C-alpha cells in the first residue's frame, strides 16, 4: 500500500505542476514584468499597403504617401537631372501653383486628383482620406522626404532590443 500511496502522490504532483504551468501561461505571476504588447497591426503588409506604418492619419501618413507616390518625380536628384516636376518644399508659402491658381487645399487636392500634362491624376488611386493626409503634409510644412529622412531615417518604434 505504501507503494500505491507514493504513486498516487507522484501523479498528483505531476498533474499539479502541469496545471500550474498552464495557469501561468495566461495569468502571469507577481515576479513577472507587466506585459507590454506591441501596438498597431502586427500584419506589416496591412500597414505597408495602406501607408500606415508611421501614422493612421495626418501629415505623418501623408509623408509616407508622398514617398511612395510623389518622390520619384519631385525629388531633388531627378530635378537636377532635368525632370520637369517642380519641388514641393514650402508649397504653401508660394503665391500660386504653376497653373496660376492660388495655393490652397482645394487647388492642391484638385492637382493631385487630376494631374497635369506630365503628371498622372491620382483620383482613382488615392482615397479622399489619402489625399487629405497628403495635402496636410504639404500644408503643415513637413515636406519633403529627401532631407532629414534620407540622411537620418525616422526611428522605428517597434524596435525594442536593448
Amino acid at each position: 500500500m505504501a507503494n500505491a500511496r507514493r504513486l498516487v502522490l507522484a501523479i498528483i504532483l505531476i498533474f499539479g505542476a502541469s496545471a500550474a504551468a498552464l495557469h501561468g501561461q495566461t495569468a502571469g505571476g507577481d515576479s513577472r514584468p507587466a506585459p507590454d504588447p506591441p501596438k498597431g497591426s502586427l500584419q506589416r503588409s496591412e500597414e505597408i499597403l495602406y501607408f500606415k506604418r508611421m501614422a493612421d492619419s495626418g501629415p505623418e501618413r501623408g509623408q509616407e504617401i508622398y514617398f511612395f507616390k510623389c518622390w520619384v518625380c519631385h525629388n531633388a536628384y531627378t530635378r537636377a537631372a532635368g525632370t520637369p516636376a517642380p519641388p514641393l518644399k514650402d508649397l504653401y508659402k508660394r503665391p500660386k501653383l504653376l497653373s496660376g491658381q492660388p495655393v490652397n487645399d482645394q487647388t492642391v487636392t484638385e492637382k493631385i486628383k487630376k494631374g497635369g500634362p506630365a503628371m498622372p491624376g491620382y483620383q482613382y488611386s488615392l482615397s479622399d482620406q489619402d489625399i487629405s493626409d497628403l495635402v496636410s503634409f504639404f500644408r503643415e510644412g513637413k515636406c519633403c522626404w529627401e532631407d532629414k529622412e534620407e540622411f537620418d531615417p525616422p526611428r522605428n518604434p517597434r524596435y525594442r532590443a536593448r
Partner: protein
Amino acid sequence: MKRRRFSISNVLSTGISLWLTICVLAVPSSLRAQTKSPLLGGASGIVKNGTGALLEGMMVQLVSHKTAIRTTVFSDQNGRFEFPKLAAGWYTLRIPRPLEFRTYQKDSVWVEGSPQIEEIVLERIHPGEFLPPTPEIMAQLSDSEWLFNLPGTGYEKKLFSNACGSGCHTWHQSLRDRFDEKGWALMTNRMMTYATRLLIEPRTSRNPNDTEAGFGLSSEEQNALLKFLQRVRGPNSEFQPMKAFPRPKGAANRVIITEYELPRFDVRPHDVVGDKDGNIWYTSNRNPIIGKLDPRTGVVKEYKVPITVGKHTGQHWLDIGKDGKIVFTETWSNNLGVLDPRSGEISKIPGMGGNKGLAPDGFIWGTCGGAICKFDPKTAKPVEKYPLKRATGTYGNEVSADGRYFAGGDPWQRDFDGVVWMDLQTKEIYEVETHSQGGDPSRGGIDPEGNAWIGGRGGTLSMFDRKTHQLREFTPPTPYLTFYEAKPDKNGEVWAGAQRGARMVRFNPKTDRWIEYQFPEPISLNWRTWVDNSSTPVSAWYGEHNGYIVHIQPLE
C-alpha cells in the same frame, strides 16, 4: 496455480504504462522526427477550425514584448506546432495571414520553458473557395497571388512580370493603383525610359549607348504592357474574388522563421552577410547606414557612411574580407567602401558600384567595358581584363569560395540572355544563353562543384554546368515568382529569395525537389540571401526591403 493479486498500485502501474505506450504510438512519426530537432523544445500546441478539423500549414507566431523579435512556426498535418526554446517572457501569440479565418491574436501570453499553449481554434469567416477582395484580404496576398488573379493573357502577365518584376518595387505598389489611359502612359514611360531603381535620370542621358527603354522590351511589348495596365487597372476596374495559393505542406512546414526589427524605418536592407562572431551585417539601399545585428539579443549597431554630396545615399553589395573588414559598394554614388568593424572607420574609393565578387586574395571581380575584370581593391581600378564575345556585362558577379571560378548573370540584354562563367586559373570563358531567352539571370553563387547558380528575374534558376558547359534552367512550382539571386549551400542545394511570392525556395538538384518556405508577410522583396553553412542543417538569412532581417532555419 498461483492466483494473481489485484492492488491499486498494480492497476495504476499497468494503466500508466498502457497510457504512455498509446501516447507514444499515437504520435505520428513525422512529429517524433520533428521533436527530435535540437532547434525545437519550446511552447507547443494545436491549431484547428471550428468544426474540430486539424489545420495544416498554419503559421503560428510569437512576438516578444521585450525584443520585438518575431518567431514563426508552422502546424503539421496533425495541426501541431512547436516553437524553439524562447527566452522566458511575455509574448503576443498570433496567426499571420489567416485569410479565410478571423484574425487570431492574444496579446499577453507568458512563455517559459516548454508550455502547452491552449488550443487555437480558428473561426472561418469566408466560406467557399474564393476570398472576397476586401482591404484585409488583399493585404494578406502576395504579389504573385495578385497577378495570378488579375484578368489578362499569359503573354500580358509575363510581360508585366518581366518588366515590373525586375525588383525595384512590389507589384502591390503598381497594382493597387488605378489610372486613366493618360496616367498609365505617363507612368509606364517614366518606369521604362528612366534609369536605375530610383528613376533619377533618363536612360540615354545617363548612358548614350543605353537602350531608350529598359527591361529589354521591344516597342510592341511596351505597347502591350501599357494596354494591359490600362485595361485591368483602369478607373472603373475592380478586383474579383481572389484565389489564394495553397498553404505549405510537409517539409515546407518544418522550419522556423525569425524576424528582427531594425532601429529605423526605410533603411531598405539590401545585402546581408554573417561574420565569424555570429553577427549579421546589412547594407541599406536608400540611407547612409550599415547595420550589424546581433541575433542573440536583436540589438543593432549602426555605422554611418559618409555622404557624397549631390548623390543619393545608399549601398548595395556587401561582403567580408579575410581581414574581417566589411567591403561594400555605394550604388547611387558609385563608390567602393571598406568598414573596419574594430574602429568603425569607413573609407571610400570612387569608381565602383553595383555588385562585385570578392576573391579570397582580396581582389575584386566584375565586368567593365565588355570584359571580365579583376579590380585592385585599393584603387577600384581594373588590373586585368578578359574580353567577352556575347555579353556586354554582368549584373551579378560571383567568385567561388576557393577563388577558382567566376560567374555572373546578364539580364535585359536584347541579344543575349545568359550566364557568363570563367575558370580564373585556365582563363577559359563560357557565355551561355538560356533556353527560355527570358530568364534575366542576375545574381547568384558558385556551388562546391564549381557550377554557377544564377537567379533570374524572369522566374527561373539558371545553372551553368562546369563539366558539360551547358546551361540548365529550373522553374519553381508556384507561378509568377521572380528571382533576383540564388545562393548554393555547402551541400549543393540552392536557396533563392522568391520575390513576389513571399517565400524562399530551396532546390535540391540531385532530387529535383523544391521546398518553398512561406513568409509571415506577403509583401516581401528579398535582395540577397546569405547561407550560414556553419550549422547542420544550414540556415538562410536575408534583409527584407520593408525594413527587417529574416532568418530561415529548416529543421531538416
